[in-house]
């Protein structure tokens, strides 16, 4: 069973690595679909808890997959997921950046970048929707989410401070 899960997490990471346009967060809807809906490795609550943990930790947000790997197949899954989500991307970026000099100005790469951008935004918003559905269970939660949205949109306060306040609101039973 565990070996099977390790293979599955490996395949998920390898297949999604080159599709993470706009960074790791655009994979949230797909990861949720795989880990919660289809493979049933965890419930909604654990998924959003893991997302919160990965957002609190430093480093690339794509490392979120290693938490899913951990849930699926223990520490082997943790390491395999982190390594395999990075590997195809590493090779692609290495090869392209070696051949890159001057391509930036060419229209084709600009058209690809401009074309993919709105789809990526849609994926990021879908990710926010998935996290909101899994985390907000009442008025209190909605208030915290909207307050966080406004604070992050309008100010440059360090996210960790906002997370701390949100944790306090949770402890006080407001959520």
């Amino acid at each position, binding site marked *: 069973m565990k070996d099977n899960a390790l293979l599955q997490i490996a395949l998920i990471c390898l297949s999604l690595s080159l599709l993470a346009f706009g960074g790791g967060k655009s994979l949230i809807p797909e990861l949720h679909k795989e880990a919660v809906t289809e493979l049933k490795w965890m419930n909604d609550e654990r998924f959003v808890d893991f997302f919160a943990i990965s957002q609190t930790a430093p480093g690339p947000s794509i*490392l979120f997959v290693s938490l899913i790997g951990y849930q699926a197949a223990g520490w082997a899954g943790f390491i395999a997921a982190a390594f395999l989500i990075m590997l195809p991307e590493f090779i692609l*970026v*290495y090869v392209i950046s070696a051949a890159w000099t001057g391509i930036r100005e060419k229209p084709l790469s600009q058209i690809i970048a401009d074309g993919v951008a*709105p789809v990526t*935004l849609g994926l990021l918003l879908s990710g926010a929707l998935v996290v909101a559905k899994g985390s907000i269970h009442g008025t209190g939660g909605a208030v915290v989410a*909207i307050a966080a949205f406004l604070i*992050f949109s309008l100010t440059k306060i360090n996210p960790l401070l*906002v997370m701390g306040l949100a944790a306090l609101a949770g402890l006080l039973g407001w959520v």
Partner: protein
Amino acid sequence: MSGPEVSKTPAGPAQAPPGLTAIFMCFAKMTLVSFGGGLTAWSRQILVAEKGWLSDDEFLEALSLSQTLPGSINANLAVIAGRKLKGMSGAVSAILGLTLPAMIILAVLVSLYISYCSKPALDKALDGVTCACAGLSAATACHLGRKHFKKPMSLFFVIAAVLLVGVFRFSLIPVLLSLGPLSALCVWLACRLKTSLEKTP
């Protein structure tokens, strides 16, 4: 620390390339100071201003390539900068420096979570944090999208992606492979139309 004055050196291999340990440590530091976000801003601060390993122009070019290619922007940036400094071994040092400290911290956090997640206090605190994360994700998307939401064609593809992936929960691969090229085609057609209108008086 080599001091901020080196950022004025012109682009080019003016200085000896740094060692692999130095590259690893530099990216490890970058990850560790980015607690709470702002990794891209820190990358510029450390690579350009502090170390002088890249000029401002080189950094911008690396950043725009990192944003165009799939994957984490900061991981891409590490690969590009590492390759520029010392080829394959430099790129490997940079990506390991960026990810290993973050993985260790994540491993500690997830162990703590597994040990204490049955405690009501942690459960309640995390309920608050996850709601804030939903707000943070939406804010990030809106911040990145402020340019695109104003263009009707871009807005159409944003909404189409939200409906297909976020609401109807289609898989990422078919959606990305259909909407991506379609959207790029529309951008290309719009460019062609614009240039042909400019040419014909």
